Protein backbone atom coordinates (compact mmCIF):
# COMPACT_ATOMS: atom_id res chain seq x y z
CA UNK A 1 0.00 0.00 0.00
CA UNK A 2 1.13 3.59 0.17
CA UNK A 3 2.49 6.29 2.47
CA UNK A 4 0.21 9.23 3.11
CA UNK A 5 2.06 12.47 2.50
CA UNK A 6 -0.44 14.94 3.84
CA UNK A 7 -1.80 15.28 7.31
CA UNK A 8 -5.01 13.28 7.58
CA UNK A 9 -7.92 13.11 9.97
CA UNK A 10 -10.06 10.10 10.68
CA UNK A 11 -13.10 9.84 12.92
CA UNK A 12 -15.53 7.02 13.59
CA UNK A 13 -17.43 7.53 16.85
CA UNK A 14 -19.69 4.49 16.46
CA UNK A 15 -19.58 1.45 18.69
CA UNK A 16 -20.21 -1.73 16.72
CA UNK A 17 -22.12 -4.73 18.06
CA UNK A 18 -22.47 -7.43 15.46
CA UNK A 19 -23.72 -11.00 15.59
CA UNK A 20 -25.64 -13.44 17.72
CA UNK A 21 -27.83 -11.81 20.43
CA UNK A 22 -26.45 -8.35 19.67
CA UNK A 23 -29.88 -6.76 20.24
CA UNK A 24 -30.00 -8.02 23.82
CA UNK A 25 -27.07 -5.77 24.65
CA UNK A 26 -29.13 -2.64 23.95
CA UNK A 27 -30.27 -2.13 27.57
CA UNK A 28 -26.70 -2.28 28.89
CA UNK A 29 -25.41 0.00 26.14
CA UNK A 30 -28.21 2.53 26.72
CA UNK A 31 -27.45 2.47 30.44
CA UNK A 32 -23.81 3.28 29.62
CA UNK A 33 -25.07 6.40 27.81
CA UNK A 34 -27.38 7.31 30.69
CA UNK A 35 -30.55 6.47 28.78
CA UNK A 36 -33.44 4.36 30.05
CA UNK A 37 -36.37 5.07 27.75
CA UNK A 38 -35.68 4.74 24.03
CA UNK A 39 -38.00 5.56 21.15
CA UNK A 40 -37.71 3.10 18.29
CA UNK A 41 -38.33 4.44 14.79
CA UNK A 42 -39.12 2.10 11.93
CA UNK A 43 -41.23 1.69 8.80
CA UNK A 44 -44.69 0.15 8.45
CA UNK A 45 -43.11 -2.52 6.22
CA UNK A 46 -40.60 -3.64 8.82
CA UNK A 47 -43.25 -3.51 11.51
CA UNK A 48 -45.44 -5.81 9.42
CA UNK A 49 -42.53 -8.23 9.28
CA UNK A 50 -42.66 -8.60 13.04
CA UNK A 51 -39.73 -6.39 14.01
CA UNK A 52 -41.60 -4.95 16.98
CA UNK A 53 -41.85 -8.39 18.51
CA UNK A 54 -38.16 -8.95 17.96
CA UNK A 55 -37.39 -5.69 19.75
CA UNK A 56 -39.78 -6.40 22.61
CA UNK A 57 -38.13 -9.75 23.12
CA UNK A 58 -34.66 -8.20 23.01
CA UNK A 59 -35.67 -5.86 25.83
CA UNK A 60 -37.28 -8.73 27.72
CA UNK A 61 -36.29 -8.93 31.39
CA UNK A 62 -34.72 -5.47 31.27
CA UNK A 63 -37.51 -3.66 33.16
CA UNK A 64 -37.46 -0.87 30.59
CA UNK A 65 -40.31 0.79 28.75
CA UNK A 66 -39.80 1.34 25.04
CA UNK A 67 -41.75 3.39 22.52
CA UNK A 68 -42.24 2.28 18.95
CA UNK A 69 -43.15 4.58 16.08
CA UNK A 70 -43.63 2.44 12.99
CA UNK A 71 -44.74 5.11 10.56
CA UNK A 72 -41.56 6.37 8.89
CA UNK A 73 -42.54 7.06 5.23
CA UNK A 74 -40.21 6.80 2.20
CA UNK A 75 -39.97 10.61 2.12
CA UNK A 76 -39.91 11.97 5.67
CA UNK A 77 -40.47 15.70 6.09
CA UNK A 78 -40.28 18.48 8.64
CA UNK A 79 -43.89 18.05 9.65
CA UNK A 80 -43.15 14.48 10.73
CA UNK A 81 -40.16 15.64 12.73
CA UNK A 82 -42.28 18.19 14.56
CA UNK A 83 -44.86 15.54 15.44
CA UNK A 84 -42.18 13.15 16.63
CA UNK A 85 -40.55 15.96 18.57
CA UNK A 86 -43.68 16.42 20.67
CA UNK A 87 -44.11 12.70 21.04
CA UNK A 88 -40.51 12.30 22.26
CA UNK A 89 -40.78 15.23 24.65
CA UNK A 90 -44.24 14.45 26.03
CA UNK A 91 -43.45 10.84 26.79
CA UNK A 92 -40.05 11.40 28.34
CA UNK A 93 -37.86 9.52 25.90
CA UNK A 94 -34.12 9.93 26.23
CA UNK A 95 -32.66 8.04 23.25
CA UNK A 96 -33.54 7.08 19.68
CA UNK A 97 -33.18 3.66 18.10
CA UNK A 98 -33.42 3.64 14.31
CA UNK A 99 -34.44 0.26 12.95
CA UNK A 100 -33.97 0.03 9.19
CA UNK A 101 -32.13 1.95 6.50
CA UNK A 102 -32.40 5.18 4.46
CA UNK A 103 -35.42 7.25 5.54
CA UNK A 104 -35.41 5.76 9.05
CA UNK A 105 -31.92 7.09 9.67
CA UNK A 106 -32.74 10.43 8.03
CA UNK A 107 -35.71 10.74 10.38
CA UNK A 108 -33.71 9.63 13.39
CA UNK A 109 -30.84 12.04 12.76
CA UNK A 110 -33.21 14.96 12.14
CA UNK A 111 -35.28 14.11 15.20
CA UNK A 112 -32.12 13.88 17.27
CA UNK A 113 -31.16 17.42 16.29
CA UNK A 114 -34.65 18.63 17.23
CA UNK A 115 -34.90 16.88 20.59
CA UNK A 116 -31.37 17.81 21.62
CA UNK A 117 -32.18 21.47 21.01
CA UNK A 118 -35.24 22.71 19.18
CA UNK A 119 -36.84 21.90 15.80
CA UNK A 120 -35.59 25.20 14.37
CA UNK A 121 -32.02 23.91 14.69
CA UNK A 122 -32.66 21.80 11.59
CA UNK A 123 -33.04 24.81 9.30
CA UNK A 124 -30.15 26.45 11.05
CA UNK A 125 -27.84 23.49 10.40
CA UNK A 126 -29.04 23.19 6.80
CA UNK A 127 -28.11 26.80 6.22
CA UNK A 128 -24.59 26.26 7.46
CA UNK A 129 -24.58 27.03 11.19
CA UNK A 130 -22.83 24.25 13.08
CA UNK A 131 -24.57 22.41 15.91
CA UNK A 132 -23.57 23.63 19.34
CA UNK A 133 -25.31 21.08 21.58
CA UNK A 134 -24.21 17.53 22.21
CA UNK A 135 -26.84 15.25 20.70
CA UNK A 136 -28.81 12.56 22.54
CA UNK A 137 -27.85 8.89 22.17
CA UNK A 138 -28.70 7.40 18.78
CA UNK A 139 -28.50 3.71 17.95
CA UNK A 140 -28.90 2.28 14.45
CA UNK A 141 -29.98 -1.27 13.73
CA UNK A 142 -29.00 -1.97 10.15
CA UNK A 143 -30.66 -4.28 7.66
CA UNK A 144 -29.79 -4.93 4.01
CA UNK A 145 -31.93 -2.20 2.46
CA UNK A 146 -29.57 0.74 2.81
CA UNK A 147 -29.00 4.11 1.17
CA UNK A 148 -25.25 4.26 1.79
CA UNK A 149 -25.40 7.18 4.24
CA UNK A 150 -26.91 5.63 7.38
CA UNK A 151 -23.69 5.61 9.39
CA UNK A 152 -22.33 8.87 8.01
CA UNK A 153 -22.57 12.55 8.90
CA UNK A 154 -25.15 13.10 6.16
CA UNK A 155 -28.93 13.21 6.36
CA UNK A 156 -31.57 14.71 4.15
CA UNK A 157 -35.09 15.72 4.92
CA UNK A 158 -37.12 16.94 1.97
CA UNK A 159 -35.14 19.87 0.64
CA UNK A 160 -32.94 20.18 3.72
CA UNK A 161 -29.56 18.57 3.60
CA UNK A 162 -27.99 18.15 6.99
CA UNK A 163 -24.29 17.54 7.54
CA UNK A 164 -22.49 17.22 10.86
CA UNK A 165 -20.20 14.64 12.46
CA UNK A 166 -22.53 14.83 15.46
CA UNK A 167 -25.20 13.05 13.38
CA UNK A 168 -23.19 9.82 13.16
CA UNK A 169 -24.97 7.21 15.31
CA UNK A 170 -23.32 6.29 18.62
CA UNK A 171 -24.15 2.66 18.29
CA UNK A 172 -24.60 0.29 15.38
CA UNK A 173 -26.20 -3.10 15.77
CA UNK A 174 -26.22 -5.91 13.25
CA UNK A 175 -28.22 -8.92 14.39
CA UNK A 176 -29.39 -11.95 12.40
CA UNK A 177 -33.00 -11.27 13.46
CA UNK A 178 -33.03 -7.75 11.99
CA UNK A 179 -30.57 -8.07 9.08
CA UNK A 180 -33.09 -10.36 7.41
CA UNK A 181 -33.64 -11.36 3.81
CA UNK A 182 -34.64 -8.61 1.42
CA UNK A 183 -35.50 -8.88 -2.26
CA UNK A 184 -32.47 -9.95 -4.28
CA UNK A 185 -32.37 -6.68 -6.12
CA UNK A 186 -32.46 -4.67 -2.88
CA UNK A 187 -29.59 -6.61 -1.37
CA UNK A 188 -27.64 -6.32 -4.62
CA UNK A 189 -28.14 -2.55 -4.68
CA UNK A 190 -27.01 -2.22 -1.07
CA UNK A 191 -23.87 -4.26 -1.70
CA UNK A 192 -22.98 -2.54 -4.95
CA UNK A 193 -23.28 0.80 -3.16
CA UNK A 194 -20.82 -0.49 -0.54
CA UNK A 195 -18.53 -1.83 -3.25
CA UNK A 196 -18.49 1.54 -5.01
CA UNK A 197 -17.76 3.36 -1.77
CA UNK A 198 -14.94 0.94 -0.94
CA UNK A 199 -13.35 1.01 -4.41
CA UNK A 200 -13.51 4.79 -4.61
CA UNK A 201 -11.98 5.04 -1.12
CA UNK A 202 -9.12 2.85 -2.29
CA UNK A 203 -8.51 5.10 -5.32
CA UNK A 204 -9.07 8.35 -3.48
CA UNK A 205 -6.17 10.83 -3.51
CA UNK A 206 -6.74 11.59 0.20
CA UNK A 207 -6.94 7.95 1.30
CA UNK A 208 -5.17 7.15 4.58
CA UNK A 209 -4.29 4.10 6.68
CA UNK A 210 -7.67 4.05 8.36
CA UNK A 211 -9.87 4.65 5.33
CA UNK A 212 -7.81 1.89 3.72
CA UNK A 213 -8.40 -0.49 6.63
CA UNK A 214 -12.18 0.05 6.53
CA UNK A 215 -12.36 -0.09 2.73
CA UNK A 216 -10.31 -3.27 2.75
CA UNK A 217 -12.69 -4.96 5.21
CA UNK A 218 -15.68 -3.82 3.13
CA UNK A 219 -14.26 -5.00 -0.19
CA UNK A 220 -13.23 -8.37 1.21
CA UNK A 221 -16.62 -9.08 2.74
CA UNK A 222 -18.50 -8.04 -0.39
CA UNK A 223 -16.36 -10.02 -2.79
CA UNK A 224 -16.51 -13.11 -0.61
CA UNK A 225 -20.25 -13.00 0.01
CA UNK A 226 -22.23 -11.05 -2.55
CA UNK A 227 -22.98 -13.83 -5.04
CA UNK A 228 -23.46 -16.48 -2.33
CA UNK A 229 -26.07 -14.39 -0.59
CA UNK A 230 -27.91 -13.66 -3.85
CA UNK A 231 -28.00 -17.37 -4.64
CA UNK A 232 -28.93 -18.36 -1.14
CA UNK A 233 -30.49 -15.43 0.75
CA UNK A 234 -31.13 -17.54 3.83
CA UNK A 235 -27.36 -17.74 4.32
CA UNK A 236 -27.23 -15.87 7.59
CA UNK A 237 -23.51 -15.38 8.04
CA UNK A 238 -23.20 -13.98 4.51
CA UNK A 239 -25.95 -11.46 5.17
CA UNK A 240 -24.27 -10.31 8.34
CA UNK A 241 -20.98 -9.93 6.44
CA UNK A 242 -22.69 -7.76 3.82
CA UNK A 243 -24.26 -5.58 6.51
CA UNK A 244 -20.86 -5.23 8.17
CA UNK A 245 -19.36 -4.33 4.81
CA UNK A 246 -21.92 -1.57 4.39
CA UNK A 247 -20.84 -0.01 7.68
CA UNK A 248 -17.13 -0.29 6.85
CA UNK A 249 -17.63 1.19 3.38
CA UNK A 250 -19.75 4.05 4.70
CA UNK A 251 -17.18 4.85 7.36
CA UNK A 252 -14.32 5.15 4.88
CA UNK A 253 -16.61 7.08 2.51
CA UNK A 254 -17.55 9.41 5.36
CA UNK A 255 -13.90 10.27 5.98
CA UNK A 256 -13.21 11.15 2.34
CA UNK A 257 -15.06 13.33 -0.16
CA UNK A 258 -17.59 11.41 -2.32
CA UNK A 259 -16.09 9.96 -5.50
CA UNK A 260 -17.14 10.36 -9.08
CA UNK A 261 -19.09 7.12 -9.51
CA UNK A 262 -20.99 7.81 -6.31
CA UNK A 263 -21.97 11.31 -7.40
CA UNK A 264 -22.91 10.22 -10.91
CA UNK A 265 -24.90 7.28 -9.57
CA UNK A 266 -26.88 9.64 -7.35
CA UNK A 267 -27.49 12.00 -10.28
CA UNK A 268 -28.70 9.24 -12.61
CA UNK A 269 -30.84 7.76 -9.85
CA UNK A 270 -32.72 11.03 -9.46
CA UNK A 271 -33.79 10.92 -13.09
CA UNK A 272 -34.92 7.28 -13.22
CA UNK A 273 -36.00 6.30 -9.68
CA UNK A 274 -33.79 3.26 -9.50
CA UNK A 275 -31.72 2.46 -6.44
CA UNK A 276 -28.40 4.30 -6.82
CA UNK A 277 -26.39 1.20 -5.87
CA UNK A 278 -27.52 -0.65 -8.99
CA UNK A 279 -26.55 2.29 -11.18
CA UNK A 280 -23.15 2.63 -9.51
CA UNK A 281 -22.58 -1.05 -10.21
CA UNK A 282 -23.10 -0.32 -13.90
CA UNK A 283 -20.88 2.77 -13.94
CA UNK A 284 -18.04 1.33 -11.89
CA UNK A 285 -16.31 -0.88 -14.50
CA UNK A 286 -16.34 1.91 -17.09
CA UNK A 287 -14.91 4.32 -14.58
CA UNK A 288 -12.16 1.86 -13.67
CA UNK A 289 -11.24 1.20 -17.29
CA UNK A 290 -10.92 4.91 -17.86
CA UNK A 291 -8.88 5.36 -14.68
CA UNK A 292 -6.51 2.60 -15.69
CA UNK A 293 -5.56 4.36 -18.84
CA UNK A 294 -4.19 7.19 -16.72
CA UNK A 295 -0.70 6.79 -15.29
CA UNK A 296 -0.92 6.70 -11.54
CA UNK A 297 1.12 4.41 -9.34
CA UNK A 298 -1.09 3.81 -6.33
CA UNK A 299 -3.74 2.04 -8.40
CA UNK A 300 -2.13 -1.34 -8.40
CA UNK A 301 -3.14 -2.37 -4.89
CA UNK A 302 -6.84 -2.20 -5.80
CA UNK A 303 -6.57 -5.89 -6.57
CA UNK A 304 -5.47 -6.57 -3.01
CA UNK A 305 -8.82 -5.17 -1.86
CA UNK A 306 -10.81 -6.92 -4.60
CA UNK A 307 -9.00 -10.25 -4.86
CA UNK A 308 -7.49 -10.71 -1.40
CA UNK A 309 -3.85 -11.35 -0.43
CA UNK A 310 -3.60 -14.80 -1.98
CA UNK A 311 -4.75 -13.71 -5.45
CA UNK A 312 -2.92 -10.38 -5.24
CA UNK A 313 0.41 -11.92 -4.30
CA UNK A 314 0.05 -14.46 -7.10
CA UNK A 315 -0.36 -11.76 -9.76
CA UNK A 316 2.34 -9.72 -11.49
CA UNK A 317 2.22 -6.08 -10.44
CA UNK A 318 1.59 -4.85 -14.00
CA UNK A 319 -1.42 -7.09 -14.45
CA UNK A 320 -3.02 -6.46 -11.09
CA UNK A 321 -5.13 -3.35 -11.84
CA UNK A 322 -6.57 -5.06 -14.89
CA UNK A 323 -7.37 -8.13 -12.80
CA UNK A 324 -9.30 -6.00 -10.33
CA UNK A 325 -11.53 -4.65 -13.11
CA UNK A 326 -12.01 -8.13 -14.57
CA UNK A 327 -13.04 -9.47 -11.21
CA UNK A 328 -15.60 -6.71 -10.69
CA UNK A 329 -17.05 -7.30 -14.17
CA UNK A 330 -17.25 -11.03 -13.41
CA UNK A 331 -19.26 -10.30 -10.27
CA UNK A 332 -21.65 -8.06 -12.22
CA UNK A 333 -22.16 -10.74 -14.85
CA UNK A 334 -22.89 -13.27 -12.16
CA UNK A 335 -25.37 -10.94 -10.50
CA UNK A 336 -27.15 -10.52 -13.82
CA UNK A 337 -27.61 -14.23 -14.12
CA UNK A 338 -28.79 -14.68 -10.53
CA UNK A 339 -30.84 -11.55 -9.82
CA UNK A 340 -34.16 -11.21 -11.64
CA UNK A 341 -34.57 -7.96 -13.58
CA UNK A 342 -31.02 -6.89 -12.88
CA UNK A 343 -30.32 -3.97 -15.27
CA UNK A 344 -27.58 -4.46 -17.84
CA UNK A 345 -27.08 -0.86 -18.88
CA UNK A 346 -28.48 2.46 -17.80
CA UNK A 347 -30.50 2.41 -20.99
CA UNK A 348 -32.46 -0.47 -19.43
CA UNK A 349 -33.49 1.91 -16.68
CA UNK A 350 -35.36 4.13 -19.10
CA UNK A 351 -32.66 6.78 -19.43
CA UNK A 352 -32.81 8.39 -22.89
CA UNK A 353 -29.62 9.10 -24.74
CA UNK A 354 -30.46 12.79 -24.89
CA UNK A 355 -30.83 12.82 -21.07
CA UNK A 356 -27.14 12.01 -20.68
CA UNK A 357 -25.99 15.51 -21.62
CA UNK A 358 -28.20 16.91 -18.86
CA UNK A 359 -26.64 14.57 -16.35
CA UNK A 360 -23.14 15.51 -17.54
CA UNK A 361 -23.95 19.18 -17.13
CA UNK A 362 -25.65 18.62 -13.82
CA UNK A 363 -22.88 16.30 -12.66
CA UNK A 364 -19.98 18.53 -13.47
CA UNK A 365 -21.72 21.65 -12.15
CA UNK A 366 -23.23 20.47 -8.89
CA UNK A 367 -21.77 17.69 -6.88
CA UNK A 368 -19.12 15.94 -8.90
CA UNK A 369 -15.76 17.25 -7.84
CA UNK A 370 -14.16 19.78 -10.11
CA UNK A 371 -11.12 17.69 -10.91
CA UNK A 372 -13.09 15.42 -13.22
CA UNK A 373 -13.19 16.30 -16.86
CA UNK A 374 -16.76 16.59 -18.30
CA UNK A 375 -15.41 14.58 -21.21
CA UNK A 376 -14.60 11.72 -18.82
CA UNK A 377 -18.06 11.87 -17.33
CA UNK A 378 -19.66 11.83 -20.79
CA UNK A 379 -17.45 8.94 -21.75
CA UNK A 380 -18.48 6.82 -18.76
CA UNK A 381 -22.16 7.59 -19.07
CA UNK A 382 -22.22 6.80 -22.79
CA UNK A 383 -20.42 3.52 -22.29
CA UNK A 384 -22.75 2.56 -19.46
CA UNK A 385 -25.69 3.49 -21.67
CA UNK A 386 -24.58 1.58 -24.76
CA UNK A 387 -22.77 -1.44 -23.45
CA UNK A 388 -24.87 -4.30 -22.27
CA UNK A 389 -22.68 -6.61 -20.28
Amino acid at each position, binding site marked *: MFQPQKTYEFYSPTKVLSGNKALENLPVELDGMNAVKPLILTTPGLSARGMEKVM*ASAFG*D*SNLTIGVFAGVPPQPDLRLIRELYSLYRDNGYDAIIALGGGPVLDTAKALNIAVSGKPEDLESLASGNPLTKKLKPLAAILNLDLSGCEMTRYASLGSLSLTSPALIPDLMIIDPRTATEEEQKTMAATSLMSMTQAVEACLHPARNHLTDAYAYGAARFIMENITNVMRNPSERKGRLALANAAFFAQTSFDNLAPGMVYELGMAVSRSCHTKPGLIMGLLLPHFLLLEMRKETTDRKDLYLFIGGPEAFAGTMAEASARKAVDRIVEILLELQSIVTYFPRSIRDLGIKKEDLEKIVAHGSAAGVRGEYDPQDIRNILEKAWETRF
Partner: protein
Amino acid sequence: MNEYKEIQSGSKPFKRAYVALMLWFVGRAIEAAARVDAAVKAEFDGLSPGFTFSLGVMPQGPTMIVGKDDQGLVRYRGWDPEGQKIDLKMKVKNLEGAILMFTFQESTAMASARNRLIVDGEVPAACAIVRVLDIVEVYLLPKLIAKLAVKRYPDWSFGEKIRNRIRIYGGAIFGL
Protein backbone atom coordinates in the same frame (compact mmCIF):
# COMPACT_ATOMS: atom_id res chain seq x y z
CA MET B 1 -50.63 8.61 15.39
CA ASN B 2 -51.77 5.05 15.33
CA GLU B 3 -48.33 3.82 14.27
CA TYR B 4 -47.16 4.66 17.79
CA LYS B 5 -47.31 2.55 20.90
CA GLU B 6 -45.51 2.04 24.16
CA ILE B 7 -44.36 -1.43 25.18
CA GLN B 8 -43.41 -2.68 28.63
CA SER B 9 -40.52 -5.06 28.27
CA GLY B 10 -41.87 -8.44 29.20
CA SER B 11 -40.21 -11.10 31.32
CA LYS B 12 -38.76 -14.47 30.41
CA PRO B 13 -39.74 -16.62 33.39
CA PHE B 14 -38.62 -19.97 31.98
CA LYS B 15 -35.18 -18.80 30.96
CA ARG B 16 -34.78 -17.08 34.31
CA ALA B 17 -35.76 -20.19 36.17
CA TYR B 18 -33.36 -22.29 34.14
CA VAL B 19 -30.43 -19.94 34.75
CA ALA B 20 -31.32 -19.70 38.45
CA LEU B 21 -31.30 -23.48 38.73
CA MET B 22 -27.95 -23.76 36.96
CA LEU B 23 -26.44 -21.07 39.17
CA TRP B 24 -27.67 -22.84 42.30
CA PHE B 25 -26.20 -26.07 41.01
CA VAL B 26 -22.84 -24.58 40.06
CA GLY B 27 -22.62 -22.74 43.38
CA ARG B 28 -23.14 -25.93 45.36
CA ALA B 29 -20.80 -27.82 43.05
CA ILE B 30 -18.04 -25.31 43.75
CA GLU B 31 -18.55 -25.83 47.47
CA ALA B 32 -18.25 -29.60 46.98
CA ALA B 33 -15.29 -29.34 44.57
CA ALA B 34 -13.34 -27.28 47.09
CA ARG B 35 -13.58 -30.23 49.47
CA VAL B 36 -12.80 -32.88 46.89
CA ASP B 37 -10.36 -31.46 44.36
CA ALA B 38 -6.89 -30.36 45.45
CA ALA B 39 -6.48 -27.78 42.69
CA VAL B 40 -9.78 -26.05 43.52
CA LYS B 41 -8.87 -26.04 47.20
CA ALA B 42 -5.46 -24.55 46.40
CA GLU B 43 -7.04 -21.77 44.34
CA PHE B 44 -9.33 -20.81 47.23
CA ASP B 45 -6.50 -21.06 49.76
CA GLY B 46 -4.64 -18.49 47.70
CA LEU B 47 -7.49 -15.98 48.05
CA SER B 48 -7.82 -13.56 50.96
CA PRO B 49 -9.62 -14.70 54.17
CA GLY B 50 -13.39 -14.36 53.86
CA PHE B 51 -13.17 -13.92 50.10
CA THR B 52 -16.64 -13.90 48.53
CA PHE B 53 -17.69 -13.73 44.90
CA SER B 54 -20.91 -13.60 42.97
CA LEU B 55 -21.90 -14.76 39.52
CA GLY B 56 -25.11 -13.31 38.21
CA VAL B 57 -27.16 -11.80 35.44
CA MET B 58 -27.86 -8.13 34.81
CA PRO B 59 -29.91 -6.12 35.55
CA GLN B 60 -31.50 -7.96 38.51
CA GLY B 61 -30.31 -11.52 38.79
CA PRO B 62 -30.54 -14.41 39.23
CA THR B 63 -27.29 -14.55 41.16
CA MET B 64 -25.28 -17.05 43.15
CA ILE B 65 -22.79 -16.25 45.87
CA VAL B 66 -19.89 -18.36 47.07
CA GLY B 67 -17.42 -17.40 49.77
CA LYS B 68 -14.96 -18.61 52.37
CA ASP B 69 -16.21 -18.83 55.96
CA ASP B 70 -14.30 -18.15 59.19
CA GLN B 71 -12.60 -21.54 59.04
CA GLY B 72 -11.55 -20.96 55.43
CA LEU B 73 -14.12 -23.44 54.14
CA VAL B 74 -15.82 -22.67 50.86
CA ARG B 75 -19.59 -22.21 51.20
CA TYR B 76 -22.44 -21.61 48.80
CA ARG B 77 -24.08 -18.48 50.23
CA GLY B 78 -27.38 -18.41 48.38
CA TRP B 79 -28.77 -16.03 45.79
CA ASP B 80 -29.31 -12.80 47.67
CA PRO B 81 -26.40 -10.31 47.60
CA GLU B 82 -28.24 -8.13 50.14
CA GLY B 83 -26.07 -7.62 53.21
CA GLN B 84 -23.11 -9.65 51.93
CA LYS B 85 -19.67 -8.16 51.38
CA ILE B 86 -18.75 -9.26 47.87
CA ASP B 87 -15.13 -8.93 46.70
CA LEU B 88 -15.59 -10.04 43.13
CA LYS B 89 -18.70 -9.61 41.01
CA MET B 90 -19.03 -11.39 37.71
CA LYS B 91 -22.06 -10.25 35.81
CA VAL B 92 -23.44 -11.53 32.52
CA LYS B 93 -24.79 -8.53 30.62
CA ASN B 94 -28.19 -10.06 29.92
CA LEU B 95 -30.29 -13.18 30.32
CA GLU B 96 -29.70 -14.40 26.76
CA GLY B 97 -25.94 -14.25 27.33
CA ALA B 98 -26.41 -16.39 30.43
CA ILE B 99 -28.53 -18.85 28.43
CA LEU B 100 -25.73 -19.15 25.87
CA MET B 101 -23.30 -19.93 28.69
CA PHE B 102 -25.47 -22.34 30.63
CA THR B 103 -26.61 -24.25 27.58
CA PHE B 104 -22.90 -24.58 26.78
CA GLN B 105 -23.17 -22.86 23.40
CA GLU B 106 -20.50 -20.42 24.59
CA SER B 107 -17.65 -21.28 26.92
CA THR B 108 -16.50 -18.93 29.68
CA ALA B 109 -13.51 -18.00 27.52
CA MET B 110 -15.71 -17.27 24.52
CA ALA B 111 -18.20 -15.32 26.62
CA SER B 112 -15.43 -13.08 27.90
CA ALA B 113 -13.90 -12.79 24.41
CA ARG B 114 -17.34 -11.67 23.21
CA ASN B 115 -17.60 -9.15 26.01
CA ARG B 116 -20.70 -10.75 27.50
CA LEU B 117 -19.31 -10.65 31.04
CA ILE B 118 -18.48 -7.73 33.27
CA VAL B 119 -15.93 -8.40 35.98
CA ASP B 120 -15.83 -6.05 38.94
CA GLY B 121 -13.00 -6.69 41.39
CA GLU B 122 -9.35 -7.68 41.64
CA VAL B 123 -8.03 -9.30 38.46
CA PRO B 124 -5.88 -12.04 40.08
CA ALA B 125 -8.94 -13.23 42.02
CA ALA B 126 -10.97 -13.26 38.82
CA CYS B 127 -8.30 -15.40 37.16
CA ALA B 128 -8.44 -17.88 40.04
CA ILE B 129 -12.24 -18.09 39.93
CA VAL B 130 -12.26 -18.67 36.17
CA ARG B 131 -9.83 -21.57 36.70
CA VAL B 132 -12.13 -22.95 39.40
CA LEU B 133 -15.16 -22.68 37.11
CA ASP B 134 -13.24 -24.51 34.38
CA ILE B 135 -12.37 -27.40 36.69
CA VAL B 136 -15.93 -27.64 38.00
CA GLU B 137 -17.26 -27.69 34.46
CA VAL B 138 -15.00 -30.60 33.60
CA TYR B 139 -16.42 -32.52 36.58
CA LEU B 140 -20.04 -31.71 35.85
CA LEU B 141 -20.15 -32.12 32.09
CA PRO B 142 -19.72 -35.14 29.83
CA LYS B 143 -16.32 -35.06 28.15
CA LEU B 144 -17.76 -34.26 24.73
CA ILE B 145 -19.35 -31.04 25.97
CA ALA B 146 -16.64 -30.11 28.45
CA LYS B 147 -14.07 -30.25 25.67
CA LEU B 148 -15.89 -27.35 24.02
CA ALA B 149 -16.27 -25.49 27.30
CA VAL B 150 -12.59 -25.36 28.30
CA LYS B 151 -9.53 -24.51 26.22
CA ARG B 152 -7.60 -27.62 27.18
CA TYR B 153 -9.17 -30.77 28.56
CA PRO B 154 -7.12 -31.98 31.53
CA ASP B 155 -5.48 -35.42 31.45
CA TRP B 156 -6.66 -36.61 34.87
CA SER B 157 -6.59 -40.27 35.71
CA PHE B 158 -9.93 -41.90 34.95
CA GLY B 159 -10.59 -43.47 38.35
CA GLU B 160 -9.91 -40.29 40.29
CA LYS B 161 -12.10 -38.25 38.00
CA ILE B 162 -15.04 -40.60 38.39
CA ARG B 163 -14.66 -40.69 42.17
CA ASN B 164 -14.50 -36.92 42.46
CA ARG B 165 -17.32 -36.45 40.00
CA ILE B 166 -19.65 -38.63 42.07
CA ARG B 167 -18.77 -36.74 45.24
CA ILE B 168 -19.26 -33.35 43.58
CA TYR B 169 -22.62 -34.33 42.10
CA GLY B 170 -23.61 -35.69 45.48
CA GLY B 171 -22.56 -32.47 47.15
CA ALA B 172 -24.30 -30.24 44.63
CA ILE B 173 -27.60 -32.08 44.61
CA PHE B 174 -27.93 -33.52 48.10
CA GLY B 175 -25.55 -31.33 50.03
CA LEU B 176 -23.55 -34.38 51.10
